[in-house]
C-alpha cells in the first residue's frame, strides 16, 4: 500500500479543460447507516465504526461486489467537529473498550486502516492515510480510479457525535485564544461556518433587497424533501414537517440566524463505491457516470469573508466545474448544493445559475415552486437541514435521481445530469454526475 502523499489528484484551477476521465469512472453503489442523534456509549453495534462497516457492506451489496474486489479505500479520518474541537475531539469514553474499540478509532473517528482491518479487505492497494472531507474525497476517488491507482474504491464519510461533545468544551471552554482563533474568539466568534456565512448573508439582504426570513420556503422545502428520504434523521425520528410558523417563531442563534437555519449534528456514516465505467456496466445497478470533479480552497482577505469574496469564489467554482464537465447551467437537471446553514445556499445557486437564477434572484426563486414535483426541484435531496448533518444526502439523492429510484422524491423533470457538493464556500469541491457517459 503506497502513501500517495504526493499524488496530485485535485482539479483546482481554471483552464484545465474537459476532465480527461469524463464518463470513464462511475458510482456503482452507496450505503447509509442509521442516522442517530448521538452514540449512547454502550451499544457497540451503533458505534461510528460499526456504522461505517455497515455503510460499506450496503454499498458493496448495492453494487454487487464482494470484499475481495475492493482495492481502494478512502475514508475521512477526522471528526466532523473538526479542529475547533481540539482535544475535545478525542471524545470516546475512558477507559476504552475491548478490541477493536481500544482507541479513539471506531468510536469518534474512523480511518481507512481501521476499516481494512475490521472488514478483512485483503486486496486494497490504494488507501491514503489522510483523506479530506466528502466534498473532496469523491474527487480523489474519481481521479484515482481514472488514473488506474485502483479499480473498485470505497469512499466512506463518518460523521460522529457523542452526548455533550459537539463543539462543547475543549478550545471553546478555554480562557486563551491561540493560533487563528486569536483573531476571532476574543470577540465571540468561535470560527464556525455559521459565523462565516451570516455576515455575507446580511450583506446580501442589504445589497439585493430581502429579509432573512425569505429563507423560510427553502428551509421548509428541505424538511419536506428530508421527510421523503427514508434513511434520513427526520424521516426515521418522527420529526414533524416544519411549518412557516415554526420557522418564523423559532429562536435566534446568531441573530438573524435562526435555530432552523442550522443542521442537526448526528452519528452516522455513508459509503459510496466508485469504479471504472466498464466495470460498473457489469455490476448490479445502472452506472452513474462521473462527468467531472473539482476543488477549491480560497484564502479570505482579512478577518471576515465579505459578500464580494464569496461571490468571486463561488463564481470561480462554477466556471471551473462547467469547464471540466463540458456542460453549462442549462444542462444541469438535478442540483444539490450544500446547506449546512441555510444562509450559504443562495451563493451557490446564483453562481451556478441553475434554472437561470442570477445574483440577487434566490429569494424570489425560493418563493416559487421548488418542490420535487414541480418545475424547479431545487435541492431534491433535502440536504443537511432535512436529514441531519451527514453531508451526504446531496450525493445519494443525485445518484438516486439519475437511477430513477428516488421514490417520492423522484423529480418530474428530466434527470440525466446532477451537480452536488459539500463546500463551505471557501473550500470543498463539486461533483458532476451523468446518467450517460457523454
Amino acid at each position, binding site marked *: 500500500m503506497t502513501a500517495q502523499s504526493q499524488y496530485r489528484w485535485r482539479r483546482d484551477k481554471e483552464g484545465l479543460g474537459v476532465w480527461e476521465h469524463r464518463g470513464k469512472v462511475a458510482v456503482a453503489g452507496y450505503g447509509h447507516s442509521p442516522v442517530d442523534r448521538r452514540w449512547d456509549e454502550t451499544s457497540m453495534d451503533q458505534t461510528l465504526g460499526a456504522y461505517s462497516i455497515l455503510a460499506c457492506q450496503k454499498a458493496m451489496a448495492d453494487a454487487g461486489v464482494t470484499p475481495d474486489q475492493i482495492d481502494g479505500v478512502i475514508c475521512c479520518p477526522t471528526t466532523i467537529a473538526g479542529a475547533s474541537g481540539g482535544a475535545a475531539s478525542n471524545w470516546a469514553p475512558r477507559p476504552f473498550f475491548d478490541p477493536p474499540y481500544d482507541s479513539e478509532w471506531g468510536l469518534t473517528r474512523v480511518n481507512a486502516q481501521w476499516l481494512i482491518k475490521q472488514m478483512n479487505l485483503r486486496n486494497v492497494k490504494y488507501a491514503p492515510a489522510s483523506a479530506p472531507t466528502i466534498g473532496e474525497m469523491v474527487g480523489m476517488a474519481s481521479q484515482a480510479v481514472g488514473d488506474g491507482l485502483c479499480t473498485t474504491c470505497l469512499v466512506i464519510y463518518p460523521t460522529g457525535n457523542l452526548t455533550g461533545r459537539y463543539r462543547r468544551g475543549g478550545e471553546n471552554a478555554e480562557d*486563551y485564544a491561540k493560533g487563528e482563533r*486569536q483573531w476571532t474568539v*476574543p470577540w465571540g466568534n*468561535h470560527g*464556525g461556518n455559521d459565523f462565516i456565512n451570516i455576515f455575507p448573508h446580511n450583506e446580501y439582504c442589504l445589497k439585493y433587497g430581502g429579509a432573512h426570513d425569505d429563507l423560510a420556503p427553502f428551509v421548509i422545502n428541505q424538511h419536506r424533501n428530508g421527510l421523503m428520504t427514508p434513511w434520513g434523521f427526520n424521516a426515521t425520528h418522527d420529526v414533524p414537517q416544519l411549518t412557516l410558523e415554526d420557522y418564523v417563531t423559532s429562536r*435566534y442563534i446568531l*441573530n438573524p440566524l435562526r435555530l432552523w437555519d442550522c443542521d442537526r449534528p448526528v452519528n452516522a456514516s455513508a459509503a459510496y463505491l466508485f469504479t471504472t465505467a466498464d466495470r460498473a456496466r457489469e455490476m448490479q445497478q445502472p452506472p452513474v457516470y462521473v462527468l467531472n470533479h473539482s476543488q477549491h480552497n480560497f484564502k479570505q482577505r482579512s*478577518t471576515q469573508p465579505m459578500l464580494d469574496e464569496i461571490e468571486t469564489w463561488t463564481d470561480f467554482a462554477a466556471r471551473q466545474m462547467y469547464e471540466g464537465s463540458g456542460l453549462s447551467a442549462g444542462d444541469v437537471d438535478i442540483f444539490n448544493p450544500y446547506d449546512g446553514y441555510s444562509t450559504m445556499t443562495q451563493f451557490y445557486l446564483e453562481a451556478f445559475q441553475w434554472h437561470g437564477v442570477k445574483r440577487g434572484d434566490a429569494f424570489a426563486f425560493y418563493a416559487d415552486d421548488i418542490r420535487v414535483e414541480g418545475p424547479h426541484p431545487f435541492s431534491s435531496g433535502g440536504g443537511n437541514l432535512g436529514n441531519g448533518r451527514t453531508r451526504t444526502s446531496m450525493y445519494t439523492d443525485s445518484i438516486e435521481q439519475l437511477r430513477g429510484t428516488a421514490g417520492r422524491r423522484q423529480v418530474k423533470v428530466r434527470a440525466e445530469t446532477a451537480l452536488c457538493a459539500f463546500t463551505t464556500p471557501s473550500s470543498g469541491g463539486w461533483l458532476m454526475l451523468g446518467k450517460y457517459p457523454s
Partner: protein
Amino acid sequence: MPKVIPAPDELSKPFWDGVNKKRLLLQNCAACDAYQYPPRETCATCGSVESLGWKEVRGRGHISSYIVIEDGRLDRRMPDQPYNLAVVTLDEDPGINFYSNLPGTPVHQVPVGAAVEVFFEEVGPGQLIHEWRVTR
C-alpha cells in the same frame, strides 16, 4: 465574564505589543504597499516575505454589518449573551476588517454604516485588545 484572552505567537507578537501600547499596527508590504490583517508569513498580494513590516494606522472605520450572538459556544462569553458582533472595515483600506462587540452600543441597536474609532480594552492582566466605538 471577561472576553477570551488572545495568546500572541511569534508572528503576531508585534501586533499585540502595539495593541498593548494602544497603537494599531498592521502588517504592511514595502514592495506593494498592501496592508494585511491578520498577519501572515507572506504578503497575500505580491507574495513577498522580506518586504513585510509594520505600520501604524489611524484606527478609523465603518460598520459594514452585524449579528447578535444569542446562543454562542464560548463558555466565557455565555453570561454576556445576547451581545453585538459587528464587522468594521478600516477606512485606510476597506479590504481590511475587524470584529467588534461595539462596547457602549446597546444590543440590537447597531447603526450599520456608522463611523467608528478604535480604542483598547483590557481583557487579561497586561493584555489589551482592539475594540471599536461609534463616533458622533
